[in-house]
């Protein structure tokens, strides 16, 4: 694994991202309606005024020209202005990215902390009552609708017990660590539920596969204890398929969890995307979708690096 490899992968991603941007631009244009629909039928906005607005956003140009104008600006770091709010696209995304990363990051940490031991124990005690219980709970977790679980938690912890705020990112005029923590606990728990369930299943099946390998029997034969075998010999190998799933889920988290964010009034990327989609806010949508694409590329590279770290036999050069 070398730095040169990573640089080469990143450079290789450039034509990919360019291709993606062409497709995204075309798809956005194909969707019915456009950002100026609001004005088109307004008698107080004359045809000339409408043309002027369109020209301001370059919307009067043919689509390929619009694309190259967009690309030219983006290459020098100008992502344009949101048509909906009049604010720079990059500012809006950066502002929403913080809450999304906090929520997604915490949810991932919770998921890992629970999914790894649960998956390992179920695999080690395969067929036991414990394994059966975990399996049932996992499927229940995967199948539980997010909004329903969220509502139950809100009713219990906010309405009945009054322990936690039911929604929002912070209290007005507070925003201390404790205050933020109180706000993030419920959405992060809800968001991690489905991931815990699916990750623990992947880790379990990976572990079962590994535990049947000869080198595990060798490790036991050498006289190593069960814990040592599970942690030092089995887990690393079992994590390799799980890393792929985690990388994909990471992208989902960056793209924002629309339902969780909406239910918990969390000011994240997912809600921003929904608003922008509804208003056909072209510059905003392009910014958001390109960011999502970049996240996929990066997550894939990181996953590849993790493979090599977990399994020394895997080498890139």
């Amino acid at each position: 694994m070398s730095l040169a490899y990573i640089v080469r992968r990143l450079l290789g991603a450039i034509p990919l991202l360019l291709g993606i941007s062409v497709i995204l631009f075309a798809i956005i244009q194909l969707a019915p309606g456009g950002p100026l629909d609001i004005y088109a039928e307004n008698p107080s906005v004359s045809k000339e005024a409408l043309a002027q607005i369109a020209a301001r956003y370059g919307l009067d140009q043919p689509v390929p020209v619009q694309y190259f104008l967009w690309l030219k600006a983006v290459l020098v770091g100008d992502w344009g202005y949101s048509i909906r709010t009049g604010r720079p696209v990059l500012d809006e995304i950066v502002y929403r990215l913080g809450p999304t990363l906090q929520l997604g990051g915490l949810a991932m940490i919770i998921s890992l902390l629970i999914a790894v031991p649960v998956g390992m124990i179920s695999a080690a005690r395969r067929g036991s009552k414990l394994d059966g219980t975990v399996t049932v709970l996992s499927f229940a977790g995967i199948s539980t609708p997010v909004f329903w679980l969220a509502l139950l938690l809100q009713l219990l912890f906010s309405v009945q017990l009054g322990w936690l705020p039911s929604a929002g990112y912070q209290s007005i005029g507070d925003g201390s660590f404790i205050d933020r923590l109180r706000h993030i606990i419920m959405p992060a728990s809800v968001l991690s539920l489905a991931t815990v369930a699916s990750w623990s299943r992947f880790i379990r099946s990976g572990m079962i596969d590994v535990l049947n390998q000869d080198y595990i029997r060798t490790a036991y034969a050498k006289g190593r204890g069960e814990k040592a075998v599970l942690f030092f010999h089995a887990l690393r190998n079992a994590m390799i398929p799980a890393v792929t799933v985690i990388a994909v889920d990471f992208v989902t988290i960056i793209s924002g969890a629309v339902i969780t964010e909406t239910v918990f009034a969390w000011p994240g990327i997912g809600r921003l995307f929904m608003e922008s989609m509804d208003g056909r806010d072209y510059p905003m949508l392009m910014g958001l979708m390109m960011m999502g694409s970049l996240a996929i590329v990066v997550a894939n590279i990181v996953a590849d690096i993790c493979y090599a770290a977990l399994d020394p036999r895997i080498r890139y050069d």
Partner: protein
Amino acid sequence: MKTKLTRRVVLQGILAGSTAFATMRVLPTMAQQAGGTLNVGLTYELDTMNTYSTGFLADAQHTVIEGLIAPDKDARYVPVLAKEVPTLENGGIVLSEDGSKMTITYHLNENVKWHDGAPFTSADVKFTWEAVKNPDFIAESKDGTQDIDSIDTPDDYTVICNYNTVKPNFASTLFTFGIMPKHLLEGEDLNTSWYNEKPIGTGPFMVSEFVRGQYVVCDKFPEYWRKSADGDQLPYLDRLVFRIVTDSNTLVTQLQSGELDMAVSVPYGRASQLEGAQGVEIIVGPQLSWGHLDFNFRNELLADIAVRKAVAHAINRETLIRVQGGFPIPIKSLVLPLFDLYDDTTPEYAYDPAAANAMLDEAGFARGGDGIREKDGKRLSFAFVVQSGRADDENVQQVIIAQLKEIGIEATADNKTGVAYREARYSGGYDLIYGRWITSADPVYSTFYGSEGENNGQGYSNPELDAVFERLENTLDADERKAAASEMQHIIAEDLPAIALFQGVSVIAKPVELKNFVPNPTNMTNFVDTKEWYLEG
């Protein structure tokens, strides 16, 4: 989410509603208490604090920015920054000799201050017109700017608007939405200005903080220009916080837990959950909105008056109201009964499926094997659009589908959201569409049913009706307007481009301690007059 509409006429489906409460205001015997914070839930993703460019009803904005005049609880205009509402009688409106143009004069209050302390003058009014009219300014609400040729400001407190036409509805546009400060905004690009975050107004509250996706904090403006009748400095409340909570379940939960004090648009289906919530009072009142089922005239089957009339007889309003928590009020005319222009003699189509069936039999539509009628190989089968995600509207749709099936008409749900919905709505991408319009205090009905009406997506055109609109909408004479409005209501009921079903209400949750709250039924929202609200106890 924005609508393709002028602000006069706002698609209620997507927007926060407001309501009227047709009761007398009871004057409290206790002295009003100053202080306190009110947490209000906003159910939409607030885009900008600029009242002219927001795609939503300007709830939060109206606490900060004031207009020259504003509609009151009965949808009648009262003076705000102007000393009186201009009328023909008080000389505020002067018609040109040939009656084709008008001049409107506003006399302004003299002790009004902007939030930065600068005096408010006639120059600000003229600037507002120029700024909104400016084609570079991308605004949702430019209504009325083109009707004015020029504005004279002979002194700091007199504004003379020279109209190039006669507009009976001048009050519902432009200066009513709010005035912008010239001394701060001259030369600013209003599309990207700081003003969209923290507008400076003359209102009782000023914006302290607007955090996107989270909340707007509006604090009391201590130098507000108005005092109460008892001489108290207004406003009474220290702080109004608007929290963005777009999920209706969460909205209700937060009202139950006390994190929110107030919400002005509780979905009908959720209102019962708030019964018994401590300290929360539910207020229900009419709203300047009506639910309507529209026909697309491009479909030749629906262009047949017999089919439209049969549909009208097939609909049972009582059931439709029941699925909406019993809240809406049945109507027969698109002019709501609280308006002076309402004509009670407008004919009504009673719920009578037998008559509906007979009409269709007579028109030659025979039932096929599946119970759906057809004639010459053409089935009475229609695509039925409502805005998806609106639970109340979707419930209404399901009931209408069932009721139409009774008379052998098949309607299939084809619901859409956002721009796709609007696209369908305005370009006629439907056979049947159910929706709700919410209007200003003086609705312009030609926008819905005039041949050139900007909200007429139905392909409906009736020259006789157009002529009536022409008379109705270009005169200031009250008697003539009333006569034309009656004629309009009769023609629409006869020709049936749409069926007016019920008047909307809005369900407001407010704290029991909040006093002097008077619901406003117009598109200027419940927050158009917050200065006298106070918390008791």
